């Protein structure tokens, strides 16, 4: 075991949640398979409710005791704690997923960040929904309201609108796109709205496709159940490549994170002592967004997608790829082109103008700091 390299993976949820945490867990397994000698230690459900007695420091201490030299802290929640703990273990490399301290330059030298540009996946998911909906009504199961969740919901909306209009020739203004926020990333009984009930309520109110933006799979489970009872409904889960398995026949596909390749690079570099602190964005590999060895973000089509719609979706993905590969579009995203208006009518991009991916908060509107849902979407934009 001369060659052994132990890395830790700290998960906020269960390793088998078929969502966010499982995607990371499998990313770690990918590293074990692809980086010789790499061995993962993991700790699941590190959150005050599930593990009140344990802090990130405790977990890291235990992992370092067991020989870990690099630790992934796979949640935005761990961003600050990671910075703190990293100072106590200067010889260990920490990668905080979805944080931006390394970008902002506030992180200790041994902390880096990783995130995926899942906006692309959401665009495709929206397109699949727009292609499929028969009632012209789509539900978006939102977690809680912040910049990230607004821009992801809006990405799905833009995709849906585009495909509804361009592939089906229907009036996009007739497309109903409703966002309901449950209040948190996953169901906390008694504290959030129950995603099962929210999904049912979408279908009750006439929506026939529900796109999930939460960490777990309630949306697709409910859709599967209702489809078995004879209703024509579909669903699009989130986060994890295998999420369709819960009800493959009504799954239109899933936008997912594919952490393995990015992680493998980091672990390999660390193993060779060559890791340099950075803020890493994992992008789709536009030659094949589902290439398990190269793409950081992907979209797998589900069995619920009709053949014709699958073809349209492929065409859409090709258009997105062309857009993304065009140097001129480096700092924006497909379909985020003017005219774009906030829900209250404020224009954020004039016709022909592209909304930038990111711009300093408060100075100019950007996708990253999307302050409201877009015009045409139904549902609250703000917490209150």
């Amino acid at each position: 075991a001369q060659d052994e390299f132990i890395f830790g993976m700290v998960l906020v949820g269960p390793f088998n949640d078929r969502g966010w945490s499982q995607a990371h867990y499998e990313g770690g397994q990918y590293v074990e398979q692809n980086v010789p000698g790499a061995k993962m230690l993991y700790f699941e459900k590190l959150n005050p409710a599930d593990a009140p007695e344990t802090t990130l420091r405790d977990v890291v201490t235990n992992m370092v005791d067991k020989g870990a030299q690099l630790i992934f802290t796979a949640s935005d929640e761990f961003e600050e704690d990671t910075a703190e703990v990293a100072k106590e273990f200067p010889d260990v490399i920490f990668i905080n997923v979805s944080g931006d301290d390394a970008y902002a330059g506030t992180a200790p030298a041994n902390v880096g960040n990783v995130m995926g540009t899942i906006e692309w996946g959401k665009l495709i998911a929206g397109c699949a929904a727009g292609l499929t909906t028969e009632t012209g009504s789509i539900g978006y199961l939102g977690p809680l309201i912040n910049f990230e969740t607004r821009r992801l919901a809006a990405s799905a909306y833009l995709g849906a609108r585009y495909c509804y209009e361009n592939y089906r020739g229907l009036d996009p203004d007739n497309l109903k796109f409703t966002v309901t926020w449950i209040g948190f990333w996953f169901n906390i009984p008694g504290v959030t709205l129950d995603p099962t009930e929210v999904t049912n309520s979408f279908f009750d109110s006439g929506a026939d496709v529900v796109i999930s933006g939460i960490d777990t799979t309630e949306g697709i489970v409910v859709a599967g159940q209702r489809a078995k009872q004879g209703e024509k409904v579909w669903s699009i889960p989130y986060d994890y490549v295998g999420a369709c398995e819960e009800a493959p026949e009504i799954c239109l596909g899933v936008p997912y994170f594919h952490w393995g390749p990015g992680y493998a690079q980091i672990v390999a570099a660390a193993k060779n002592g060559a890791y340099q602190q950075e803020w890493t964005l994992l992008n789709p590999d536009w030659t094949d967004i589902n290439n398990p060895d190269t793409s950081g973000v992907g979209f797998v089509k589900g069995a619920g997608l009709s053949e014709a719609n699958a073809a349209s979706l492929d065409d859409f993905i090709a258009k997105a790829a062309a857009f993304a590969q065009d140097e001129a579009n480096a700092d924006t995203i497909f379909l985020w082109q003017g005219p774009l208006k906030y829900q209250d009518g404020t224009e954020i991009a004039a016709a022909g103008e592209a909304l930038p991916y990111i711009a300093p908060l408060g100075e100019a509107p950007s996708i990253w700091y999307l302050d409201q849902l877009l015009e045409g979407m139904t549902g609250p934009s703000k917490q209150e």
Partner: protein
Amino acid sequence: MNNELLNTLNSIVANATPLVIASLGETITERAGVVNLSLNGSIILAAMVGFVAALVTNSALVGVLAAMFIGMLVALLVAAAAIELRQDQVAVGFVLTLLAADLAQFLGQSYTRIPGPQILNTPLPLLSDIPVVGPVFFRQTILVYISYALVIGLWYWLFRTRPGLAHRAIGERPAAAFARGTQVNRLRYIYTAAGGALVGLAGAAYSLSVKAGWATPPSMDGDGWIALAIVIFGGWHPFRVVLGAYLFSGLRALATVIQRTPGISIPIVLLNGVPWLLMIITLLLVSSGAIERLLRLLPRQVQGWSRNFLRSDPPAALGTRFEPE
């Protein structure tokens, strides 16, 4: 009536069903003078066991039976501790509610979020075609139909049959029951077990139907407490209990609908606290004599009837021990 409303009402009935079943189970138990405070944990454990049993055998029926068995087991533990070992029912129930939930999480860890058998709607012929009523009440799962039968059956049992007299008597005045030849403690075991079996059935109704599957945190966490409150709100009367459960379910649905209603802006997160506020308010209503004051506003003719319906005296011997000489 439009479709959306009918669908929503249908979902409200469906979502309320586990609450109905659990509260009726607890009503059976409490009418016999025993408090089974373990409901929240029992339901969770039963849901997990029911799901796993159904998954392993690929039979929802086996799942349902397994869940009922578990609910019965936990309830019997409460009864035995209270009757045989003279322990405080509340303490034992409380410990069990925590223990059962942890046990469910531990034993169910490798069964989270996987697809399993489900109990699907079976619309009843003829009945489901009745306008309005049909789509709301008779396009449901068999468990929902069972809950209808339970409500009426329990009411008939308690208030129209001879064994029902004994059932109520052991919860009201065990000494009197004993004097009439009723074997108080034996019946308490039986009714606690029966109530527990229904609590277990409620668990299965969640994991096999209403919130299909198993996950942590369990999506039905907290509903056991609400069921316990519904029993109080329901004044230990089957009809009122069912009304309470539908009311809660309806208000939960409202919280979802409000979000989609333009023009109403309540912080979404705060909206999620509504069921709990409602729980306090309903208990306040039944406890503080507010209902009595409201009743006096009604026309005299219906006052007596409504007072009877709304009266909510707990079984007089609830939570006490009985030891025959």
